[in-house]
């Protein structure tokens, strides 16, 4: 399992009416081929912007710095045209809501094959044949007929399967899945998660799953990065992060969830609310909400520090260290 994507010190500035503001701030992580890497965090934590930065699809007037080396090439330094050739072919995306991410007016065939034909230069019938195969891979019944249909004729779960087929069309090495199941019901979500899991096993596909749902994370991810205020709070193997979190924020998130085995105990929310863009506090971005904050947290920006096997935490006081 080699490293497929290495992100180093990724910073994204977005244009706001008060000037550029950092949405992602010095983020570093790596994704190995064939693994599922999870990025977790609340809204505004910068997780979606990270994915957009990798694809070169940031909104107008946004800027980036840092490096994101994919198969030896720095995505952030590539010319738009060259990046376009990587996009959809080597790195594909599945987004949150299949009812909005599939084009409502184009046939499934067009949507599954158009980039195949563009990137791979194959003919209409060949692309069609592949599309049929793809649709059966994602378990769409009667793929021939499905190709002639439009997205509105499918249920949410089916649409997401189609969206995944679209993403897989050019056999990419990396799939960026941004909240791939958030818009779906739990019973359907289970199916999609199983599909993702199967695909990465069968196709040696690396998947970056972006989600706020730690339950989803726990089900599919091999390694997890927890983001807060555009920065890494904690990154490490799934089991370590979810069972022995070392960052107070990770701990807080887990505590806010309904307790795994029930009991009438009330939920324990994290006080306050996540910072909005351009209002990220100095020092450790989490310090105003942190129960363990010490004086230095207000000034010093903690960098993620390796504290265990592949486990990094950006919290120098390490108040949970003993709890592990």
């Amino acid at each position: 399992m080699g490293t497929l994507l290495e992100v180093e010190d990724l910073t994204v500035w977005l244009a706001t009416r008060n000037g550029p503001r950092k949405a992602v701030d010095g983020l570093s992580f790596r994704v190995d081929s064939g693994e599922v890497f999870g990025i977790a965090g609340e809204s505004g934590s910068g997780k979606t912007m990270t994915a957009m930065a990798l694809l070169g699809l940031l909104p107008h007037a946004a800027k980036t710095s840092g490096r994101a080396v994919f198969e030896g090439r720095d995505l952030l330094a590539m010319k738009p045209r060259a990046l376009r050739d990587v996009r959809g072919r080597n790195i594909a995306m599945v987004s949150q809501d299949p009812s909005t991410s599939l084009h409502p007016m184009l046939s499934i065939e067009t949507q599954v094959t158009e980039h195949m034909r563009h990137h791979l230069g194959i003919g209409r019938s060949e692309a069609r044949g592949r599309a049929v195969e793809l649709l059966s891979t994602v378990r769409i019944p009667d793929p021939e007929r499905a190709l002639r249909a439009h997205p509105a004729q499918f249920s949410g779960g089916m649409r997401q399967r189609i969206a995944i087929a679209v993403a897989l069309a050019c056999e990419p090495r990396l799939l960026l899945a941004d909240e791939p199941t958030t818009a779906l019901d739990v019973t359907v979500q289970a199916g999609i998660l199983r599909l993702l899991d199967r695909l990465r096993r069968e196709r040696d596909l690396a998947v970056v799953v972006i989600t706020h749902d730690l339950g989803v994370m726990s089900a599919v991810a091999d390694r997890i990065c927890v983001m807060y205020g555009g920065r890494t709070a904690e990154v490490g193997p799934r089991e370590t992060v979810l069972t022995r979190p070392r960052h107070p924020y990770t701990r807080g998130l887990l505590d806010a969830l309904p307790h795994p085995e029930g009991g009438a105990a009330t939920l324990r929310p994290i006080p306050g609310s996540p910072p909005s863009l351009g209002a990220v506090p100095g020092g450790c971005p989490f310090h105003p909400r942190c129960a363990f904050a010490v004086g230095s947290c207000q000034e010093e920006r903690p960098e993620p520090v390796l504290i265990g096997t592949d486990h990094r935490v950006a919290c120098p006081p390490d108040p949970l260290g003993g709890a592990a």
Partner: protein
Amino acid sequence: MTTGSRTPWRQPLALVGAAFVVLWVLVAVLAPVLAPYGPLDQIADKLLEPSAQHLFGTDQLGRDVLSRVIYGAQVSLPLAFLLVALSAVIGSVVGAVAGFFGGWVDGTLMRLADLVFAFPGIILAMAVAAALGPELRNAVLAVVVVSWPSYARLVRGLVMSARNAEYVAAGRLLGSSSVRTMIVDLRPNVAGPVLVMAALDVGNAVLLLSGLSFLGLGAQPPMAEWGSMVVSGMDYFDLWWLWLYPGLSILTVVLAFNFVGDTLRDALDPRTARAIRG
């Protein structure tokens, strides 16, 4: 992610527009001071080319075109404001009633609006003006007749969507009567879009009114009205100063209001903005 485009008053276009609006209002108010001559004074030789003495030349009766253009603002601007206000009030009331009661009331009122929409504005205005007799007052009425439905549709749409809004439902559950809810919740939501539409509509009103005058159904000569000045200038086609300046005046007034209105529209919610076609 949005940039500064949502703050209308910082936009240069809106500023230019506002400046021109103010300028024209001043011209209208100060016409007697600004104009070198009276609008009907036959003070010079006829059809003189523009010169230092008569900046915009003179017309076929030896009247100073500049003075007539200046006095023209006294005709077009107040009338435009008046009829936009009339249309906005009438249209808003009709729209609110239709949206609020729904059912056959809505059906009837909106079919009426459709009827008006089915006609190209000027043709209906023409018919109305012709029916009532070609006078400026009747032309104003005609323009009101064709312009209220846009307000009715806009307000009806806002009322209908507000009717289904959860905050209205919440108010109703608290025991607010439907009328009170509509007034309390709707007034602040309708005022903005209606104002924006009105700003854009001032331009349209000026255009429509001058169009009617151009057809001879609005202001009658010798009144110094821009549209009718253009049409009398048309008799002397190659004496461009007769029709160029009144037309330019219409253009700048309309453009100014459109600059302001359009910028304001951009600040609105896009779905509301779409209902305002200006």
